[in-house]
């Protein structure tokens, strides 16, 4: 669990699950961990093992409470075959974590509030989001032959989207990843040379909570529609009673009336329930250097509580917040995730998901601001933001779009795209300050293109 057992509470962490079996097993591997004030979440992934085989599953999960150890279970045919509690210790929790990629595990200068986790290539995660619990990744040695394709892509995606890497003096690249890291063209990331004798400084200010979800205000009960529905049902039953009492064989009118009233009221209840379950869903995909990082956030308050279900894209990392019981995040055969939980009445339930993928979409801006070049797709309603100014486009087509200097205006800080981005990505303001960006509406979510300057 975590980085060589080290945990930064409240952040995404890498988890490696190793399962060995002396007989063939087709079942589920279940990781259960605490994620809310009173809720534990089960992450359920399918596993198939042949006799004597070992399966290695890696995932990124948020770890919050180091005192409550995660429990790993292997289930097959509805039975628990094995269960083990992972060892986590409050002594190995820190608010500032530095990963040190160094096989020799040499001494490391640290300030008192920092902790260093010594790693080798096999410890590196396959999900870029898992790196977000690190303040820095220090690379003293990196043998790229030891990395699989996913580990390779995850490290590159994290750095491209703002990860901080310190490359020790004397580091020699052993492959394309190392060469890329020292190339100086690493997207939003910060890759710097570092002398091992120089103490590390933690980031300037504590980062915002990366798992934050925005909670909608509590809904109002739909008394008017409920009163109308209940009064209607009562009148129907009165009529049924009257018919039932009017003749010897007309008693059947009462159960028929009750069945009709039940059907109507159950339908009305479903409708009212939707009205008093207020969702707040934001999904923003930030594209930089051909890598798309989707930040998703959904929160809802239901006046009456009850079951909640979401279907999330494949290869997402999923976290829950708020008050819930009986929560399960299950990987479906086609790779998507289905989340199901029981929500407490009147209490918020939040879901965060992060997903990293490759994309052909990209944009570049002329240094004088004369044209914008779009590659890899067409964008509908879009806005270009740069140096405190913005301009809109009804539609952006692939190729160059010439920019009329007269159409720039002051950037709107309350622009819905900016608001949505801020809600899901703590780094949004820094990116907007340092880079031109294109905000584009794409159905129910937003795309943010970090524009290169050419």
């Amino acid at each position, binding site marked *: 669990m975590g980085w060589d057992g080290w945990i930064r509470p409240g952040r995404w962490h890498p988890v490696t699950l190793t399962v060995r079996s002396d007989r063939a097993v087709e079942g589920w591997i279940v990781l259960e961990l605490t994620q809310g004030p009173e809720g534990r979440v089960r992450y359920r992934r399918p596993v198939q093992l042949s006799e004597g085989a070992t399966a290695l599953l890696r995932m990124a999960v948020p770890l919050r409470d180091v005192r409550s150890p995660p429990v790993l279970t292997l289930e097959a045919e509805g039975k628990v075959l094995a269960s083990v509690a992972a060892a986590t210790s409050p002594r190995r929790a820190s608010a500032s974590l530095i990963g040190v990629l160094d096989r020799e595990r040499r001494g490391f200068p640290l300030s008192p509030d920092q902790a260093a986790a010594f790693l080798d290539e096999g410890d590196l995660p396959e999900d870029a989001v898992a790196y977000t619990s690190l303040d820095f990744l220090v690379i003293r040695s990196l043998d790229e032959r030891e990395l699989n394709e996913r580990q390779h892509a995850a490290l590159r995606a994290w750095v491209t989207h703002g990860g901080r890497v310190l490359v020790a003096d004397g580091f020699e690249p052993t492959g394309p990843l190392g060469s890329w890291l020292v190339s100086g063209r690493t997207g939003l990331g910060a890759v710097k040379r570092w002398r091992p004798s120089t103490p590390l400084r933690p980031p300037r200010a504590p980062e915002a909570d990366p798992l934050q979800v925005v909670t909608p205000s509590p809904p109002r009960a739909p008394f008017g529609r409920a009163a109308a529905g209940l009064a209607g*049902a009562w009148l129907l039953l009165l009529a049924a*009673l009257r018919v039932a009492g009017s003749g010897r064989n007309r008693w059947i009118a009462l159960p028929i009336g009750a069945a009709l009233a039940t059907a109507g009221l159950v339908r009305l209840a479903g409708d009212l329930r939707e009205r008093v379950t207020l969702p707040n869903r934001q999904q923003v995909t930030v594209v930089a250097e051909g890598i798309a990082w989707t930040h998703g956030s959904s929160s809802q308050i239901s006046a*009456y509580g009850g079951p909640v279900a979401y279907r999330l894209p494949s290869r997402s990392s999923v976290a829950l917040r708020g008050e819930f019981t009986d929560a399960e995040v299950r990987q479906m055969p086609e790779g998507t995730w289905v989340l199901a939980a029981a929500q407490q009445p009147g209490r918020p339930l939040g879901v965060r998901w992060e997903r990293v993928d490759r994309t052909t979409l990209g944009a570049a801006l002329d240094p004088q601001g004369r044209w914008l070049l779009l590659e890899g797709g067409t964008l509908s309603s879009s806005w270009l933001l740069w140096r405190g100014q913005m301009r809109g486009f009804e539609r952006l087509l692939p190729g160059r779009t010439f920019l009329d200097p007269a159409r720039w205006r002051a950037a709107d800080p309350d622009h819905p795209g900016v608001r949505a981005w801020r809600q899901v990505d703590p780094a949004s303001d820094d990116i907007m300050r340092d880079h031109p960006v294109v905000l584009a509406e794409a159905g129910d979510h937003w795309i943010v293109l970090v524009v290169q300057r050419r």
Partner: protein
Amino acid sequence: MMAVARGDLRARFTTSKGATVQALFSGLVYLVAFFGVSPDGAPGRPALAAISSIYLVIVAYLCAALSSGEIAIPEEKGLPDLATTRLPAHAVGWGKAVSGAVFAASLSVLAVPALSFLLALRALPPTLALEQAVVLWAVGWACAGLGTWMGGAVESDLLRSIALWAALIALVGLPSLAGPVQPLEAVQPFVPFAKRAACIGGAILLGVLLFALCVRWTDRLRRNP
């Protein structure tokens, strides 16, 4: 037996007073359901629990009060009236049992749409309302037996009312006196099946005993008018 049952049911369903009682009962059920639309402020669905309990109390009271004559419907005959007829005692007692069962069933059926609505509003299976309705019916029928017997056994209206209320409180309100029956617990939506079954079985057994007592009491009224 069916003549007694038909007479009671005709009085309760076709006379103006009987129809008024049914209309008021169903109005009260749907008014109470309206209060259940309020958002649940706490886990455990307290509104649903309270409303289920209120329905049980109303059904239990109405079944007992109409059978005992506390709510008198002039056309309905009690045990003392029927004891003066030529009908056999068992026809009187079990006829009352049939009318009590049908009446309790009608009240339970009237409560099903409201309970289903409140359950569906909380994303719970509306079919739970049927289970709750069976508890309402069984307890209502037992209370009808209690009321029928008291209608014959206690002559004074005041004493009968006091005795009826005391018995209802003991049966419905005090779990320790109700033994395994515990109706207030069994009528809740989330109850283990065994508890609900124990309540339904216990209430039916109690009803059988009380209506059997009514048969004996009819005989006794005939011997000592």
